[in-house]
């Protein structure tokens, strides 16, 4: 919520809620103070919240993004300590071993706070992880505590044991015994607790007394591969940009190869002098990490690019990568393999747009224009020894990510396509139906149609096939005919039930 408010200051003071899905039900995860004032609370269903106030602003809360943002914050705070550990999506432990450089723990903590750029937070500096977390969560602000929490843990609620330590289920027996604070738990004999609850009892007893042996475990750094190169001066020509790009590609390539990874999708961000950015994406036709090839492809993408201001920096980010495919080169095969094809595909993408390259995937839908979908185009694998046909078969077998089936709910039966229907469809289907001027006789029979500026006589007609449906959204009702048009061939047309006009949908070869 704080991040959102910081990014979009216009949201401040407005009723806003973040929601997430919990066992199939959308629930409120966080509510802004304005939303809380009208009765919206965390945990209530989204429908109930909207029923309370229809105009409340809604944003999905994605835990993973929040955690990522928190880790980014942790990374940004690394100048205050050698490592950090994130605590869910609500808190961070920072290694305070360098606090003496700021004069005192308190001064260090305040400096950390300043670096958080306006985010609201509470901090506790202590020797044990559990103690610091429990006190911070129990609304203690700005404390530096000694060993065992200086006795301040006694009043802390038993809830402190749950998240990340025991879990709600393990803590339940303590609640059933009427224990509500850590102090009450600490008052019980450790031996009695161990004999009853085993390791859980021991851990609970120790934590309640402020004895936490757990170590700070540094969060691993993000796996994002990104390199930024600042240009020495704003560049107006391609050459210095390519020079900087080469540095970035060298580093990225090295890192990829070191990890035995290959890039699948890249993004170049060109920071312009006018504080603008131009982003160019490059979807590789096959995973690769070879610097020469990568640079070649990137060069091709940038060659056709026109920017309005000088470029000041360039960021190369590997948006998607995968384990590098092992490929045994054959005798005489060059290191860059099918570079020529990759270059062609890259140029096609540059010229026609990224979306222009796709494979049509059949979809089990009755509406003809919805009966196929775009899937990622997978060209044949490189290698002079492999025939195109063989590779094409392989690429068909590989399931493109875009067409992976959605996870089915329990008991759900997936629709399928049947060959009998597929056999009646034209070999060339238009992306969308197009109006076609037609002429009918007195009996309402179709006699001619205008194609390519000429009136064509209907030589034969077959149909209708009636297709109706999707009444829940944009319903349709069509009578399809296969029409043999003079001088054109066989065309698939339909008469729309709503306006009575004819539209062409495809052509039979």
């Amino acid at each position: 919520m704080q991040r959102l408010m910081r990014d979009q200051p216009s949201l401040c003071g407005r009723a806003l809620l973040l929601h997430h899905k919990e066992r199939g039900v959308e629930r409120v995860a966080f509510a802004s103070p304005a939303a809380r004032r009208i009765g919206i609370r965390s945990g209530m269903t989204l429908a109930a919240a909207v029923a309370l106030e229809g105009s409340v602003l809604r944003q999905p809360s994605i835990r993973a993004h929040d955690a990522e943002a928190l880790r980014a914050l942790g990374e940004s705070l690394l100048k205050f300590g050698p490592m950090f550990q994130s605590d869910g999506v609500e808190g961070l432990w920072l290694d305070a071993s360098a606090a003496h450089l700021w004069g005192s723990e308190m001064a260090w903590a305040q400096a950390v706070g300043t670096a958080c750029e306006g985010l609201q937070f509470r901090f506790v500096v202590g020797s044990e992880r559990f103690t610091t977390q429990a006190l911070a969560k129990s609304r203690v602000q700005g404390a530096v505590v000694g060993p065992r929490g200086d006795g301040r843990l006694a009043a802390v609620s038993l809830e402190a044991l749950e998240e990340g330590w025991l879990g709600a289920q393990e803590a339940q027996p303590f609640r059933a015994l009427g224990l509500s604070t850590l102090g009450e738990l600490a008052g019980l004999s450790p031996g009695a607790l161990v004999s009853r609850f085993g390791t859980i009892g021991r851990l609970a007893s120790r934590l309640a007394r402020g004895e936490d042996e757990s170590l700070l475990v540094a969060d691993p750094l993000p796996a994002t591969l990104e390199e930024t190169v600042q240009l020495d001066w704003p560049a107006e020509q391609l050459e210095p940009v390519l020079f900087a790009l080469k540095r970035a590609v060298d580093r990225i390539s090295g890192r990829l190869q070191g990890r035995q990874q290959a890039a699948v999708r890249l993004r170049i961000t060109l920071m312009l002098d006018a504080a603008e950015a131009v982003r160019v994406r490059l979807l590789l036709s096959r995973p690769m990490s070879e610097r020469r090839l990568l640079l070649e492809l990137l060069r091709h993408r940038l060659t056709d690019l026109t920017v309005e201001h000088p470029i000041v920096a360039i960021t190369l980010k590997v948006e998607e990568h995968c384990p590098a495919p092992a490929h045994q080169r054959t005798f005489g095969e060059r290191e860059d393999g099918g570079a020529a094809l990759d270059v062609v595909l890259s140029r096609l993408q540059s010229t026609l747009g990224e979306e222009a390259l796709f494979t049509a995937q059949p979809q089990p839908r009755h509406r003809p224009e919805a009966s196929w979908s775009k899937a990622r185009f997978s060209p044949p694998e490189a290698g002079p020894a492999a025939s195109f046909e063989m590779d094409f078969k392989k690429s068909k077998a590989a399931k493109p990510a875009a067409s992976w089936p959605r996870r089915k709910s329990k008991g759900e039966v997936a629709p399928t396509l049947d060959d009998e229907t597929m056999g009646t469809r034209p070999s060339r289907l238009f992306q969308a139906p197009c109006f076609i001027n037609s002429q009918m006789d007195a009996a309402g029979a179709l006699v001619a149609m205008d194609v390519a500026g000429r009136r064509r006589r209907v030589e034969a007609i077959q149909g209708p096939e009636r297709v109706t449906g999707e009444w829940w959204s944009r319903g349709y009702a069509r009578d399809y005919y296969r029409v043999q048009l003079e001088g054109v061939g066989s065309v698939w047309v339909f008469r729309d039930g709503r306006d009575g006009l004819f539209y062409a949908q495809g052509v039979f070869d």
Partner: protein
Amino acid sequence: MYAELVCRSNYSFLTGASHPEELVARAHALGMEAIALTDDDGLYGTVKAHLAAKEKGLRMIIGARLTLEAPLGGQVVLCVESAAGYANLCELLTTSRLRHPKGEAGVPLGEIADRAEGLQLLIPKIPHSAQSLAPLCEAFPGRVSVGIARTLEAKDTHRFQRARAFAEKHRFPLFAHNDVHTHQRDRQPLQDVLTAIRRGTTVDRAGTLLFSNAERTLKGPAEMLALFSDLPEALERTMQVASACRFSLDDLRYEFSREALPQGSTPQTYLASLVHNGLGRRYPVGIPPEVTQQIERELRLIEELGYAGYFLSMWDLVAFARRRGILCQGRGSAANSAVCYALEITSIDPVRMGLLFERFLSKDRNEPPDIDVDFEHQRREEVIQYVYAKHGRSHAAMVSEHVCFRSRLAVREVGKALGLSLDTLDRLAKHVDFNEEASTETALRAGLSIADPTVVKVLALARQLSGMPRHLSIHVGGFVISDNRVSSIVPIENGSMKHRTVVQWDKDDLSAVNILKVDLLGLGMLTVLSRTFRLIEKTTGQKFSMATVPPEDSAVYDMLCEGDAIGVFQVESRAQLSMLPRLRPRSFYDLVIEVAIIRPGPIVGQMVHPYLRRRSGEEPVVFPSEAVREILGRTLGVPLFQEQAMRLAMVAAGFSAGEADRLRRALSHKRADQLLPTFRERFVGGAIARGYHRDFAEGCFDSFKGFSHYGFPESHAASFALIVYVSAWLKRYYPAAFCAALLDAQPMGFYAVHTLVEDARRHGVEVRPVSADASGWESRLEIDGTSLEAYSSHPSEGHPVRQPALRLGFELVRGLQESSVRKIEEARRSGPFRTVGELAQRTRISRADLTRLALSGALPCPDRRTALWDIHALGPLDPHDLFFGLPMAEDRSELPQMSRLERVTLDYDATQLSLEAHPVALIRPALQRGKAVTAEALLAMADGTPARMGGLVIVRQRPPTARGFTFLSVEDETGIANFVIEPKHFLQFRQEITMSPLLLGEGRIERRSKVVNLKIQRLSAIALSEQAS
């Protein structure tokens, strides 16, 4: 011409989208000659279609789609030509269903071939393994047809080619059909929704699982001729098949099962001898002549109609129950029969009560008699299994119930199919009232926008879906018993309950085709009475039965006049508790009226207030003639019972007995508005002709209209009144035993166990908590070292006998296993338990059950937390462990003490009640600070006084007859108060009323004699917290 031969109704569950009646009506409107109903693996909708077709004059062909056994799969349609064919079809469907779990079916080809006689075989769609059908077809020489459907789909041509190739190869004729799923095209959206529900998906994800168009619908002859202009012979074939299928359900022959008779007896003579023996027992001092007369009249009619076997079967069932010591009693219109009384099927003397026999059985009425018998609900299964054992599964089956979508479920299912989010759906469904249709009002109440097209579609489709059959269930107690095989009359299938088989028709269908059913019903109160009698005998040695309970005890009536009737059969509801002090019953017949008057019929007919005014002397009772006085005298001139309407029609307007019964049925018909004008004219005309004033005649007839709503016949009310009296007598004199029996019979009645226990305590019963050392599974009575004499003084002295203490049973402990309780009882024989460890060691019950006992306070421990602490110390509780259950030696740790609120809350969680305090007592200080009074204080307040009262909501009611008023029964530590909420306030405080267990009500007192209500103006939820106390 054309007849549709392949047609699914909504009895092809979640597939067809039209009612059978809709299909018939549409077929008639389209000018078809005939229509076949061919639902999947059943004849569920056949009777409804048959009745509708009869009404329209359309010929209905009986048929079904049979699923072929795997691995062949696919379906064929069989249509019935003759009675033999019908029996064969029923047997095939029975075989198919009984061999598979509920909801599944499959029959081998060989069995179809064996039962081919009298059936037409239609192959609507050629399966992939078409050649395997060839041997089956040989069993139907000249009676095989191959179907072609032109539903304007891409596959039409391909399917047609396959069908034609198969037909030409085997020289079978082709027939045209539409594979009908809807009666008209605009029902297709609902059919799509049903498909999505059946397939567990949403309509937008269903894709090609849905039909590609709406052409699977009924089409008229002209449209079919246009579609099949190239194949007129395919249309002609439909007519040939239709003309061959002449069987109608009117030709169905059914005979009730014959009992084993003594040598030389016929059913009639045996029945007569049993009746005469029974009369000797019923009238030990001599049979009154009017009884003899009535018996002779009834026996004559029974002989004439051939129902002797039916009465003998009922007698046999009741005799079996009595042999087993199962309490039972006939109810309903059977109590009008002196024969039933003599056979001890019913307990009310119809002659002494002046009940009308024609209400039960009439020659003019083409309807079988209906004998319903109540048995102790916990032992009814014994009687059911007796029926199966005696007649066999092929000759006896239970009646089914066609469970239909109700508004709420319809909204839920349609919403899911249209992809509404679960939370939105939940909210919308929760705001659909039980007995109302989903409407835009509903959406507004749920806070949803009615401009949202999805919401609008959900509401519209839910309205269509509401009332459509969803699945088959088992009727509460109906049985079909037949002399010939039931499975040759109606298909039988497995019920959802183990060891139950059910017929595919519901009770209305059976009645429509004159098939007798017997109703073996379970009645919780009979279980209570039986157990109370046993407890009394055990603790006092006195034996009582329903027949020996002292009649007309004034102390019992005094109690009822005070509205003190919680737990008493039928008169414990909020409305009845309010009525008792106003009606002030002083005799058995008053109880008959009390039972009958709070029903929708008398309420809507506006009979309640005139009756009360006349009873209290505020209004004179005038009769236009002596004959009318004889009929209406007992109800002070107000016709409260259907029998009175019938008698008035006969005496005052000259109706015959049959006409009078037709009037009764017209009154309760769903189209009463259309049927009644003719009867009204006849009644008013007849009454005037007999010298009655027009105002009287019209007034009488108008009050009859109330009978179109639910009401009790007098005989039924009398049967129930007997149970009312006996249960009230037991509550009055043996409240401890009565309460114990009520607790053991739960769930039943209106009230939760805490209310029943609170009521018993208010009646001086000492209630003791669940205890490992004293409790059994069921609640029991405890006598503390005093002689039995003290407890067994006879109640006729006018005051209750000394009450034993009531020890609560383990069954109240939530989740506790009965097997664990048996172990505790076994271990307890060797002495009381001293510690938790000892109990664990001696009983070896699970930790979960030990914990449940600890939480309920049943363990030998000073407090519950210590008990839990001790249980945790017992180690792993492994029965094979040498040290199982041995506690370890250690210093006792101090656990926080439980507050009173915590104890009471835990009591409710663990045992549904608290003996320590009423929850409202805990927040009394806060209530007092808010100037709220107790329920007891409320009773003493004057009419019109403003008042506040807070308590636990124990009953919420919004009866359809109350014009939107809502009634709450609110309990506190002193008693129960009534809140009356006007519709506008209901809307204002709907959330609080439906969601909050504790409410604070504010309003004005409404007092009518001893009936006090708080008419609510404001409601608020109360939180149960330490702060509040």
